[in-house]
Structures are given as C-alpha cells and as structure tokens.
C-alpha cells in the first residue's frame, strides 16, 4: 500500500512535468484550426481586378493554396516576395494552383499593393467585409490554407509563408495523399 501511493505520487508529478515540458514547445498565438480535415466553405466573389468572379469550385481537382492578405498588413509585404517566387516555381504544375483573398481592404488599396510589390499572376478574390475570411475561420493576415483536390482543407498556416515552406510543409502533405 505504501509503495502504491509512492508510485501514484511519482506518476502524477512526472505527468505534470511532462505536460509543462510539452507546453513549452507551443506557441500560444498558434491556435489549431478546427477546419483542418473538413471541407472548405465554397465561395464565388468579385475579383480584385474587376474580372469574372473568383469561384472556389472551379479549382476542384487540383491542390489549391488560398492566401488571405490585405494591403494594410505589414507581414503580407514581407511574405509577398515568397508568394511571387512560389507562383513562378509552381507555374508548370498542373495539380497545383494558388489564389489570394484580399480582405478588409479597399479595391484601390489592394490594387496598389500588387502594383508596387508585383503581381504574382494568380486570381485575387476581393472580400471587403471579410465574409469569406470569417467563413474560413481567419483571425488575421496573412493566413494560408492548403486545400486538397476534393476540397478538403489539409493545412493552415498562421503567419507569413517563408522560404522553403512549400517543400517543407506543402509537398509532404500533397505526396501523402495523391
């Protein structure tokens, strides 16, 4: 009996310490999205460039990177260079596409952003009252979703994409599920 209590005490202390140790690794700002593994909310909204509406459905059958941004967002500026590079890099892939969602922005603001920092060439949806952003559980910008060919969200990146992100994060997910 005496030993049993000692074991229980030891196990509880070790468990608490282990939980603390695991918690050290966590980023409190990185809240896991409950949307991963669930179908992405469909949308069809006006494009930033006054072209035909941007429709999520039309990308079915391909992996899709959905990048939420705004001209008001400082980190989006630093991320933009990589997005340009990624668009160039993946231009030949027929199984992969990218779109942007410019949210909580003005049309002029969004257009100016692309004019000054460069247009990566993919379609940009315009979401001034962040209806799509809320529907997609977006907290802030930039946030990026990776949607599989069946329209299921497979990954959410909170914060800017970084050099090598595609190879490190996206490719392994894409190769795991052909």
């Amino acid at each position: 009996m005496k030993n049993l209590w000692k074991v229980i005490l030891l196990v509880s202390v070790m468990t608490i310490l282990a939980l603390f140790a695991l918690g050290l690794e966590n980023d409190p700002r990185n809240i896991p999205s409950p949307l991963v593994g669930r179908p992405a909310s469909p949308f069809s909204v006006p494009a930033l460039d006054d072209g035909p509406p941007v429709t999520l459905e039309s990308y079915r059958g391909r992996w899709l990177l959905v990048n939420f941004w705004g001209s008001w967002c400082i980190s989006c500026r630093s991320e933009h260079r990589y997005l340009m590079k990624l668009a160039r890099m993946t231009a030949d892939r027929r199984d992969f596409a990218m779109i942007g969602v410019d949210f909580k922005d003005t049309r002029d603001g969004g257009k100016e952003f692309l004019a000054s920092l460069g247009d990566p060439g993919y379609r940009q949806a315009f979401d001034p009252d962040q209806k799509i952003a809320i529907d997609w559980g977006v907290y802030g910008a930039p946030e990026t979703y990776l949607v599989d060919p069946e329209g299921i969200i497979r990954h959410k990146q909170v914060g800017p994409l970084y050099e090598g992100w595609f190879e490190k994060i996206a490719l392994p997910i894409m190769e795991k599920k052909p």
Partner: protein
Amino acid sequence: MSIHRLFLIWAIVSCVSFGSMPLGAVETLEEPTEATVRDIAKSLRCAVCQNQSVYESNSDLAKDMLSVIRTKVAAGEQEGAIRDYFFQRYGDYIYLEPTTQGGNGLLWWGPFLALLLGGIALFSALKKWRRETPVGKSPSMDTDTDTKTFQNRLKNEMEQID
C-alpha cells in the same frame, strides 16, 4: 473675487450644463432581434482580442462578426446554430465560457477529482498514523525516560570533565 468675475463663471457653467442637456435626445426603439444578436455576440470571444466578447470589442473583426451574426439572426437561424457556426470555424477558443464536453471535461472535473484523491490519501494517512501510536503507552512516559537518560548522560559527562 469681483462681482463681474463671479457672473462670468456663472455664465460659463450654465452655458456648459445647458449645452449638455439631452434636449435633442430621442428614444430609439431596439429591433426585437437585436436582443438575440446581443446574447450571441456576448457569448463569443472576439477572435483577435485576448478577453473581450464580440459585442464589446471595437476591433474590425469583431464588428464584422457582429454583422454576420445580425445577418444570420435576420435570416431566422437559431441561436445554437449561429454559435455552432463560429465554433466550427474557430474552435473552443471562440466561446467565452468553454464547453464541458470532450477533453474539456477533464479540465473541468480533473481538479475536483484530484482534490478527492488527495482527501482520500490524507484521510487514510491520518488513520494510519493514529494506529501506529501504541495503545496504553502515553507520550508523557516517553518524555520521562528521555529526561532520565539525558540526566544520566549529563551526569556522566560532567564527572568525566571533573
């Protein structure tokens, strides 16, 4: 203070207080659905604030979430369905008062369980300690023997020094 100055102060004070009277205030009647909107918005956390409800927050996201709630209430959606809409998208974090379901149950009831286990452990330990004191032998006898031994030892040592 001169009469003039007093009059001036009186004039300023009355001007200010007269101007702040709610002469132009008109009572506006709230839309009946607004109460539901408020209830829902007060129970949801503004997703970008640390501890403010959607209803209280001034952030852009909270304002837009409020307008989404308003649209949904106007469309006749149920309160539970609207709360669930945000839960599906933002997870547990969105509720200012977390649910007790699933893994959260452990967090809610765990401390009480730990308290209960601790209580049982303390109780059984106390019982055991009381049992270990031999019956019929009072602690004062112990002290007596101790004192005697001590006195003998002291005496011996004093003799040695002498």
